[in-house]
Structure formats: structure tokens, C-alpha cells
């Protein structure tokens, strides 16, 4: 009996302690989500007046070819950036786990792109790919003579998508690197020694020791990257506003040209549902939480 009273008290204390957090999350996250769902059923005017139009926003959206195009762009963007950052992060982590001179400095320098402000590095990248003065065209055309024509890689939406992917990989691989390196350092040395004794060369040790040990961190990195990049706005918009990933498309719907906040809300609702479904599957099947 006494123990059940203790448990009850404990539970009550727990509730009290999480109450402020629940309040803040409710205000900042839950409320906007529900408001968003609510908005998606209305035709919203700039002056704030709303007309209920049922599922019209959804049917308009599903009939809009630009919507499907942006889904396609988003999928390529996600695949490229998630795989790119994870692989590059893993490679950097494995490299930085070796012993060499100035390792600590190198470990720190790798983080630079991650904490550099987006706005300033974006200008740098735009300058690199500038068709007239950019170093990219200078190297490709004038130095290596690979082609005669100077390309405006960022101006063309098709090639701009790949510049945006490259930029994201460069900017965000340090977070993958950081998480993977932290785990890598805690892999017991004697596992590698045991694998070497069992006849495994360096590649075999990576495959049979490093990868299995990193499995959950890699899966977590992938999960985080999917969540972040499905919603990624500023990097894409600032570098190449002509690359229409879902968030960019949503923004154009909501705030540019024909302002259609109801339509934009409908996109977000679908995106939220897809994301929640994806993550649920991923957590269940891959992370096995």
C-alpha cells in the first residue's frame, strides 16, 4: 500500500515538473499545428477574413503540377543531402579518429562550415559559381579547358539543385561528423584488436566493428537530417531561390504573388502527415525503439 502512495506522489510530482514544458510546447508547437489544420479548410484573405471552403485547398493543390514538381525536387534534395552528409561525416569522423599531428586543430576546423552564418557563406558560394568572375568557371573553362562555355550553374534551376545539395552537404556534414566521432571514440580498442586477430584487415575491421558500433548513431543522424532538410528553407532560398523544394513552394504559395495562406496551410498539413508517418516507420523499423 505504502509503495502505491509513493508511486502516486512521484507521478504527481512528475506532472508538476513537466507542466511548464508542456505549456510552452502547447503554445509554440501544438497550437500552430492545429491552427494550421484549421486554416487549410479556409480561403484566407490578406485582411484576415476567412471563408470556409472545405477540401478545396487540397483538391487545388493535388491538381497543381508545380506541387508535384516541388515534391520531386525535395526528394532529390533529401536523398542527396542525407546520403552526402552522412557519408562525408562518417569519412571525416573515421579520419579524425586516427592519431596524427595537429589532430585537435583539424578536428576544430572541420566544424567551421557548421557554425559560419548562412548568409555570409551563401554569398561566398554565389561568388564561386558566378558565371563571369567565379572561380568555378575560371578553373573549368580557363584553366582546365574542360568546356568552352561559361555556365550559370545557380541561374539554371536544374543545375542549381545540385549546387544547393553540395552546399548543404558542405555546411551540415560537421554535425554528422561530430555525432559519429563522439561514438567512434567510445568503441573499445580491443574490439579492433580482436577483429585483427580474427584475420580482418582494415576494411574488414571497419565493416565488422566500426559500422555495427555506429549503427544507431548513423540511423539517428539520418533521421535528424531528414527532419531538418524536409523543412529546410533559408539555405535553399538564400543560395538559389529558383530551386523549388517543398518549403520554398509553400512560401511562394503563402507569401509571394497570389497570397494563398489556406493553400500553404494545406501543403504543410500534408507534409506534416507524411513526415510523421515516415518517422514513425523509421523509428519502429530502423531504430527499433
Amino acid at each position, binding site marked *: 500500500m505504502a509503495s502505491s502512495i509513493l508511486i502516486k506522489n512521484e507521478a504527481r510530482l512528475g506532472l508538476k515538473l513537466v507542466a511548464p514544458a508542456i505549456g510552452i510546447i502547447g503554445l509554440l508547437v501544438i497550437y500552430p499545428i492545429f491552427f494550421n489544420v484549421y486554416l487549410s479548410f479556409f480561403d484566407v484573405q490578406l485582411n484576415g477574413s476567412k471563408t470556409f471552403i472545405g477540401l478545396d485547398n487540397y483538391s487545388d493543390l493535388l491538381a497543381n503540377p508545380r506541387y508535384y514538381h516541388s515534391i520531386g525536387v525535395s526528394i532529390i534534395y533529401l536523398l542527396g543531402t542525407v546520403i552526402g552528409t552522412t557519408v562525408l561525416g562518417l569519412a571525416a569522423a573515421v579520419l579524425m579518429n586516427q592519431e596524427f599531428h595537429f589532430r585537435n586543430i583539424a578536428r576544430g576546423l572541420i566544424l567551421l562550415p557548421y557554425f559560419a552564418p548562412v548568409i555570409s557563406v551563401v554569398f561566398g558560394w554565389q561568388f564561386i559559381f558566378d558565371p563571369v568572375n567565379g572561380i568555378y568557371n575560371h578553373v573549368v573553362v580557363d584553366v582546365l579547358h574542360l568546356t568552352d562555355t561559361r555556365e550559370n550553374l545557380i541561374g539554371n534551376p536544374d543545375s542549381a539543385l545540385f549546387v544547393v545539395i553540395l552546399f548543404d552537404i558542405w555546411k551540415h556534414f560537421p554535425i554528422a561528423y561530430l555525432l559519429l566521432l563522439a561514438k567512434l571514440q567510445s568503441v573499445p580498442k580491443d574490439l579492433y584488436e580482436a577483429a585483427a*586477430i580474427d584475420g580482418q584487415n582494415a576494411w574488414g575491421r571497419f565493416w565488422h566493428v566500426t559500422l555495427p558500433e555506429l549503427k544507431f548513431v548513423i540511423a539517428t543522424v539520418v533521421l535528424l537530417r531528414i527532419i531538418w532538410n524536409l523543412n529546410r528553407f533559408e539555405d535553399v532560398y538564400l543560395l538559389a531561390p529558383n530551386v523549388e523544394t517543398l518549403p520554398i513552394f509553400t512560401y511562394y504559395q503563402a507569401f509571394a504573388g497570389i497570397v494563398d495562406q489556406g493553400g500553404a496551410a494545406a501543403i504543410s498539413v500534408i507534409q506534416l502527415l507524411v513526415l510523421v508517418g515516415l518517422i514513425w516507420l523509421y523509428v519502429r523499423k530502423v531504430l527499433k525503439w
Partner: protein
Amino acid sequence: MSSVILRNVNKSYGNLPIVKNLNLEVKDGEFVVLVGPSGCGKSTTLRMVAGLEDITQGDIQIGDRAINDLPPHKRNIAMVFQNYALYPHMSVRENIVFGLKKSGADAETIKTKLADVSEMLKLDEYLDRKPADLSGGQRQRVAMGRALARDADVYLFDEPLSNLDAKLRHHMRTEIARIQHQYNMTAIYVTHDQIEAMTLGDRVVVMRDGIVEQVGSPMEIYLQPANTFVATFIGSPAMNLFEAKVDGEELVFDKYRIPATSIANVDLNVLASHDTVLVGIRPDFFEDSALSLQRSPSDNLFAFDDIQVDLVENLGFDKEIMFTLGGENAKARLDLRSHVQRQETISLSVDLNRVLLFDTSTQGMLINAGEV
């Protein structure tokens, strides 16, 4: 199986020498134990054989292959690690056959080896578990199994029992001895536990500060230690050492005069060149003079009379008594037939055939090696 030969092997980290000019030959099928206190270089030596540490100087050979520059995965060795180093994501079964598979064994061989090993180490019911779901003793057995499943030239053991509790350690020690007799493997076994060294080794290598102090069979090491370090390191409680004056043919300390002529294998000429010597008597060789024990004619008893007992520790069959002799704290191990009490004054006898003499300055043994 193969022999292992270490020739003038040196290892140093920067300027710090860890192993100094080590020479050792482990014969085919021989079980050699490296024993010594922490930091004596025994583990480093083992890891050099394994290829986990490079060799600063010298040569190591397995069979007729020079292996200095071979990476560990090409040396065909098997090893049991102190912390087991089991692959956490693999089941017990996968752990055991991992190296075997890599070595290119066919499915049939893998199956029979796995069955053999798991039966011998009683792992049958755990084969599908992950290491995390096993107790320390079970993990240790899996680590043993992983090594034994391999058809390696030499088997290396790096303090494999040091993480087990006393009872399990004793059990596994017997198991290893049994397996060794069954497989007749070439093995190098590192331990700081002198009981493991004594019970497992065909030969024991006692090391200190990177130097081999003595190599010999367990009984040679016990009965004819090369110096005071080996004498006090092997054997528990440690050997008593008393400094004695050499007075003609007698050794004098406290009020006792031991006739040196009665000590086995003493060279009186050598003795005459020393002013003092260290007299070494193992606690095990003291007897309670009050007991009328069966004597053999070769016994050569000397009695230390008027010994004041400071403390008695009853250990069941044995009892350890502490007393002062020649100004030194000394210990004797008697058995339960003796009824010695604390503060009592008693007489302890010792068979002078078992008494050892060491050089006071070099600490080396002064008695010619005889039959063990």
C-alpha cells in the same frame, strides 16, 4: 601448431624501455606462462607476438616464419583478451565462428568446430544470445571458445581470468588446464597471478621491469628461485628473508647459529667469500616442533626455539602465524594439527634441505641447482 621464438626482443615507448633484450623459445605444444607484477612488460611481450605492438628491436618467429613485419591478421594466431572483446552485435555462435569463417573453413568444419567448442565450454544453450545477455563467466567462456575454434599456430592469453570472481577463476583455471592437455596447443599465457602461473605452465617465465628474471618449470621456480625477487614473488605467503652473518661454517642471526654444512648444495668456498648472506625460508617449510611428525632419514632439522607468536590467522586447514625473527617480521604456515596460540612461545623446525641462501648485494641465489 608451431613454436614461437623471440630473439633479443626490445620494446620502448620513446626513451622508456618496456621490454629489454628478451630471449625466449616456446616449443611446439608447450604452454608457457609469463608472470610478473604490473608494468613488468609481460602483456607488451604478448602483444608483440600478436602484432598489436610493433617491435622496437629484435626478431619474433612463429614456426619458421619471421613475423616482425606481418600485421596481426596475417599471423594466424588466436587470442583471449582480458576484457573478452566479444563483438556486441553478434550472437555467441557468430562470435565463435567469426575468425574461423574468415580463415576460409568450409561449412562442415565450421559446424563440427562450433559443436566441439560449445560442448567443451558448455555454451550450447547460449549460442543464440548476445554477449550483453551473458554473465562475466559466460562471456569469458565465449572468448575462450572464439580462440579455441580457430586452427591457429599459437594461442595467446592476456590475463583471461582476472575479471572473474575467485570461485569462477579457480574453475576456469582447471578448465584451461584440461583443454590444454586435450588440444596440446602452443600457448603463451600472461598473468600476474602466481597460482595460475604455477598450475598452468609447462614452463614459467618470471619478469620484472622488462627483464626475464628466470625461466623454468613451476617447481624449479618454486624450489630454486634465481634470486630474491623470484623467491618472494612466487609463493604465498612470500618467502622469509633473514640477513645472517657468515661465521666460519655457521650462519648467525639473532641468537641462532645454523650449520651451513647442513644446508643442501652449499659451496663453502663461495660462502667464505661473503660476510653476510640472506637466508630464505618459505613459510610452508616451517613446522611446529611440538608435533611428533613422521620423519624421513634425509631430513635435516634445525629448530628455532623461543619464538614469540605475535598473531595467528586461522584459515581452516592452514594457519598462518606471524612472529619476529632476527628483527624481521616473519610468517610460517602450519596446519590444523598445531595448536599454537597468540603470545605463546614455541619452537619452529625447518628442514635445512629446503633453506636457500642469497647474495646480500646481488640478491642472486648462492646455492647450486640440484634435483627438483
